[in-house]
């Protein structure tokens, strides 16, 4: 029986064996002994298959990590770390496909189509942990900037993805290091730090310094 999953694996098998996307939905369907029509009941295009594979990775990761006993006790920082580690652990099983799919992504500022679902899942998740972090006081609530935290996490995710694709250390240990160190730095920046105090102090001086001048002591 044809399912979303069976089409996914047939597609992965096809692109990895031939090294290119199938010529057409028609030929792909024929090869897998189904009617072209049947294909469209599940997916609109090859791109949407790829998109769903990426999205599944994220949603599987999320359901896996939130099932861990320790999850509830984690800080936002740890939740972010947990997501990254589990995602790339899971991604190992589809590494070849990921390498293939990422290779076809055109460089640019906008989010590639195949990442759209993944990004939505990820942003949903990071928005939640950032909000939790701000509420608990773990992260600094900076006007304007706080809304951008989730974008920073997404950028970092893309960075680690690229790092992982190029990582050839045993067990991808280097990726673990990149995650541990990178995410920690990012969250350090999200936290209230000396810079906030400096900014605050500068603001204070700006206002109160002027007062002094106006009254001309």
């Amino acid at each position, binding site marked *: 029986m044809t399912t979303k999953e069976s089409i996914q694996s047939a597609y992965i098998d096809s692109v990895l064996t031939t090294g290119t996307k199938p010529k057409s939905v028609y030929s792909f369907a024929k090869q897998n002994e189904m009617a072209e029509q049947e294909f469209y009941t599940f997916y609109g295009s090859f791109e949407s298959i790829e998109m769903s594979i990426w999205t599944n990775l994220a949603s599987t990761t999320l359901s896996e990590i939130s099932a*861990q*006993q*320790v999850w509830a*006790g*984690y800080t936002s*920082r*740890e*939740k972010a*770390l*947990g997501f*990254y*580690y*589990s995602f790339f*652990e899971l991604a190992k099983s589809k590494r070849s496909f990921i390498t293939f799919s990422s290779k076809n992504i055109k460089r640019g500022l906008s989010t590639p189509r195949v990442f759209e679902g993944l990004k939505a899942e990820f942003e949903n998740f990071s928005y939640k942990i950032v909000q939790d972090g701000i509420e608990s006081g773990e992260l600094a609530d900076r006007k304007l900037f706080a809304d951008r935290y989730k974008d920073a996490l997404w950028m970092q995710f893309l960075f680690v993805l690229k790092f992982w694709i190029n990582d050839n*250390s045993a*067990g991808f*240990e*280097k990726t*673990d*290091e990149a*995650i*541990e*160190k*990178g995410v*920690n*730095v990012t969250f*350090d920046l999200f*936290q209230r730090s000396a810079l906030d105090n400096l900014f605050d102090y500068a603001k204070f001086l700006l206002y109160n310094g002027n007062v002094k001048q106006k009254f001309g002591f």
Partner: protein
Amino acid sequence: MSEFPKEQNSIPITKVQRSAKFVSTGLKVGGNYIKHYSKKLFNPDLNTDELNLNNASDIYDSLSELKGSALKVAQMLSMDKNMLPKAYSDKFAQSQYNAPPLSGPLIVQTFKKVFGKTPEQIYDKFESRSTNAASIGQVHRAELNGRKLAVKIQYPGVGDSISSDLKMVKPFAFRLLGMSEKELAIYMKEVEDRLLEETDYELEVRRSIEFSKACSVLNNVVFPEYFPELSGKRVITMSWLEGMHLKEFLQTNPSQELRNQIGQALWDFYNFQQHELRAVHADPHPGNFLITADGKLGCIDFGCIKELPDEFYYPFFSSTSTALMENKEETIKAFRQLQMILPDDSPIQVDFFAELFKEMIGLFAKPYITDTFDFGEDAFFTRLYTFGEKVAKMPEFRQARGVKDFIYINRTNFGLYNLLHELKANINTDTFKPHVVLEY
């Protein structure tokens, strides 16, 4: 430990950043150090109080952010009290206790990689906060089938960073030891080899089982039980030993008798290994020992083992015997074998160094010559340090002497002496005697 160390917020990311860290520290130290000549391998307290404290905190501040092998080097330097001024060693000694822990998710990740399971799936209970740092890893409490366990987890990428970290430590080592690059290279290699061995947790488990079995004949020495099936490349599971670290133990004001008992256990532990096993636990850092409630010495870390090859063991330990020392010709041959006297030394130099080393080893060997020895006496240590200082000032010592094996064996024995001194233990030193060869 009542207080958890603060979790690390940032680790310098890349090698470049780590280098930068080292460089900036190097500069600071250089500044602090500018008026000072660094000293030789056998150097005691330098008595240059005005700058050591600054240096120590600068170096420590930077090393404590580095983790891994750099931290190990800090510990190593902190061990060699005879090589470093007290200000350094006190600061460095903290490195054992204050290394910031890794994140919970990384621990889960490490377990998944080693066992394919999370800690929760393996143990009945697992504390995700580490109790303390173990130089290249951290220790967690766990429980399985009602048994309390200690789980040691290694930081990722430690092995990789050792070589590059050591290269970066070199400038410090030059300043601190005053050796040339070429001389230093042989010693650095030795250190690197040992450090790399320490990252192999599978090897450590095998050795721990082997050594704790061999040492089980000793009185008052206990070891944790190791669980190879719950250990792997980067995780070691052992039973949890309850006890106090040396410092805490001493604060309880133990009786002389109890201090002697612990001291005796330490002496036997080390000398049994050196003379009977010919391989020794070469990390006599106070953090590697626990003193149990029933007055036993617990050894909890077999990461660093130094094997004693015959060509080092016999000439070195035989020279602790007066029978060899009275035969000048054979003594010189032994010293040549140890490269304490070098092939192109002139006859005057040969005589000079033979005398000097005889005095030095004679001093070191004092505990071996009598049947009992009181390590509580300051006089012996003062003599040791004064002698070291004298040697350090000698222009003849511009060149490094001695085979590479000396590094770890000195570290082991001076470390042992220091521990015994801190315990103020009066012990029988004739329990495990060196095997002596009188002709070379």
